[in-house]
């Protein structure tokens, strides 16, 4: 009996409800949201501690037993991702407290963020396929809401594309769930693992797996299903973009990892080979498209795609080490990517633009901000001892160790092109002199409260890199756990 599992979902939900029912005044909104985020961080931390102790912990919501009820399960992967979600949520809310306009607060920015957090945690924790679908829908709706929140400059045409393609993906998803239910008669993931082995028509099973892969592939922004992401992310306010960029695609990646290590593992020579192809194409197409962009947010958005490719590559290789690499990559990338979008917001505040051509000189005038960009950017490019180095190293090593030399070469080449893009931003934004026609950077048009989360996340990036051994131990344990789901299944069954 461990209700602790429900708190990462429940707590933000309660905070969101409180926001409306208690009519939190606009000027207190930030404080309440930060308090809520900190509480969420606390319970996520407790959950992590619990999982470190018990390895897998399960809660059967409503006390209904296996496999009929809905269970929440936290293994290493889930617990780590919940914790990292809480961290990003906190950072973003602290940043937003000084950045978001009253208009957006009135439109319900904070409750939406809270529910979005709840949904993300729900997706990470649930042990039931249909419940996963529900959390995806909550997530999607919350993201729609935040996206169209009163931001008069926001272009709704981009939001339309985002909404349309995401709706298509949820339709694919529910179709796949329906078919899978028809095939196996169950929705519980652990039960699905057992039933999957008994499905005789493997072609049919593979087809269902492919439909599922397409659905989550859209969510995770895999090639060639990523169009919705670059279409919309660059229109978002910095805090929102940071949150979305860090987490939304990763939930898709998480779902792929969960399903393709627990359920769809009978035909790995087909499914995981396809995943590998998709991963490589995703890595390359993301990084190539990024190179052509001149808007910071567009560059970063395309890089999200590229980096999702690395994570999926780890899944496709399908060894404990590779999955550990995927986990390290996810943690690293969520932190670094969110941070970069926050920095993008600060750059905008300092220069009034997002376009590389129109800015410059920040290295001279904004030293701290330069460091704030440099650390996550070069972590993304994979420079030691920052977190991104280990992530890249693990993925490449996993490729080489399992004999996937082409994949390793692609991963390395993409690393070089990432370096190219990050160097481009650095050169244009920080080193170049501001072009004569454009205004010089403003002295410091942002408060220390907006800088603080950036620096904290930088610190995480550095610390993660310096204290890699515990992270490695945890990731390897997570990788083992994913490759040998016996413990997961036993824990789920035992709770019934």
């Amino acid at each position, binding site marked *: 009996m461990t209700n602790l599992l429900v708190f990462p979902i429940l707590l933000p939900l309660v905070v969101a409800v409180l926001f409306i029912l208690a009519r939190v005044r606009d000027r207190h909104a930030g404080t309440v949201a930060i308090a809520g985020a900190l509480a969420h961080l606390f319970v996520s931390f407790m959950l992590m501690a619990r999982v470190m102790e018990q390895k897998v912990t399960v809660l059967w919501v409503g006390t209904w037993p296996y496999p009929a009820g809905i269970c929440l399960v936290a293994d290493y992967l889930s617990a780590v991702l919940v914790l990292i979600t809480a961290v990003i949520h906190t950072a973003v809310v602290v940043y937003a407290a000084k950045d978001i306009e009253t208009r957006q607060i009135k439109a319900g920015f904070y409750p939406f963020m809270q529910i979005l957090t709840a949904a993300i945690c729900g997706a990470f924790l649930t042990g039931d396929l249909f419940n996963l679908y529900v959390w995806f829908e909550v997530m999607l709706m919350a993201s729609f809401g935040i996206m169209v929140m009163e931001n008069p400059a926001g272009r*709704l*045409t981009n939001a*339309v594309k985002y909404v349309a393609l995401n709706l298509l993906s949820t339709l694919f998803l529910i179709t796949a769930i329906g078919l899978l239910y028809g*095939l196996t008669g169950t929705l519980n993931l652990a039960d699905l693992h057992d039933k999957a082995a008994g499905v005789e028509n493997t072609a049919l099973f593979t087809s269902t797996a492919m439909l599922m892969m397409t659905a989550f592939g859209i969510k995770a922004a895999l090639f060639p299903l990523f169009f919705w992401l670059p279409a919309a992310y660059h229109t978002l306010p910095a805090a929102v973009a940071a949150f979305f960029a860090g987490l939304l695609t990763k939930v898709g990646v998480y779902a792929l990892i969960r399903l393709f290590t627990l359920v769809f593992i009978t035909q790995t020579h087909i499914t995981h080979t396809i995943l590998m192809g998709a991963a490589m194409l995703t890595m390359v197409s993301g990084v190539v498209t990024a190179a052509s962009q001149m808007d910071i947010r567009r560059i970063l958005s395309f890089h999200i795609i590229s980096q999702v490719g690395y994570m999926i590559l780890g899944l496709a290789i399908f060894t404990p080490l590779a999955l550990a690499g995927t986990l390290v990559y996810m943690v690293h990338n969520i932190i670094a990517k969110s941070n970069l979008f926050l920095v993008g917001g600060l750059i905008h505040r300092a220069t009034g633009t*997002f376009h590389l*051509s129109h800015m410059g000189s920040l290295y001279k005038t904004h030293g701290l901000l330069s460091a704030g960009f440099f650390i996550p950017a070069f972590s993304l490019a994979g420079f030691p001892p920052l977190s991104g180095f280990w992530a890249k190293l693990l993925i490449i090593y996993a490729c080489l160790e399992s004999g996937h030399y082409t994949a390793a070469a692609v991963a390395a080449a993409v690393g070089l092109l990432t370096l190219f893009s990050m160097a481009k931003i650095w050169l244009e934004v920080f080193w170049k002199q501001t*072009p004569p026609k454009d205004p010089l950077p403003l002295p410091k048009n942002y408060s220390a409260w907006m800088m603080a989360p950036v620096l904290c996340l930088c610190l995480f990036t550095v610390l993660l890199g310096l204290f890699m051994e515990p992270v490695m131990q945890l990731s390897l344990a997570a990788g083992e756990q994913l490759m040998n789901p016996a413990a997961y299944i036993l824990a789920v069954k035992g709770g019934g």
Partner: protein
Amino acid sequence: MESFLAIVVGLMVSAAFFLMLSGVLIRFVFGLILMGNAVNLLIFTAGRLAPVNPPLIGAKQTLLAAPAANALPQALILTAIVIGFAMTIFMLILLFRTHDQTRTLDADQDRFILETDKTDLPDITGQKVQE
């Protein structure tokens, strides 16, 4: 019966995708509604067509008296219907406001195609964009 339902589902899906691809966003919403219906039917069919009894336990009884239709897919469909309804309404309102902004709902128009502002246009030479 099943094969007919499966064909109905398939045709509805085809119609839905065709409408979505038309590029007229209102028809996209129609496609969405249609697809929602098709998927619900699909889940229903996947839950197997059983005897026509609804899954209700009679008064004074504690268990089903006779075999009944599969209740679980029904519950899933109910959830899906309501979620689909919410999404459809949202999409509709979104289009309504988008129309205010662009004065068109033809997704093939340039106003829809352009994803970035003029100044954000891809600029591969690294030279400053001329305005």
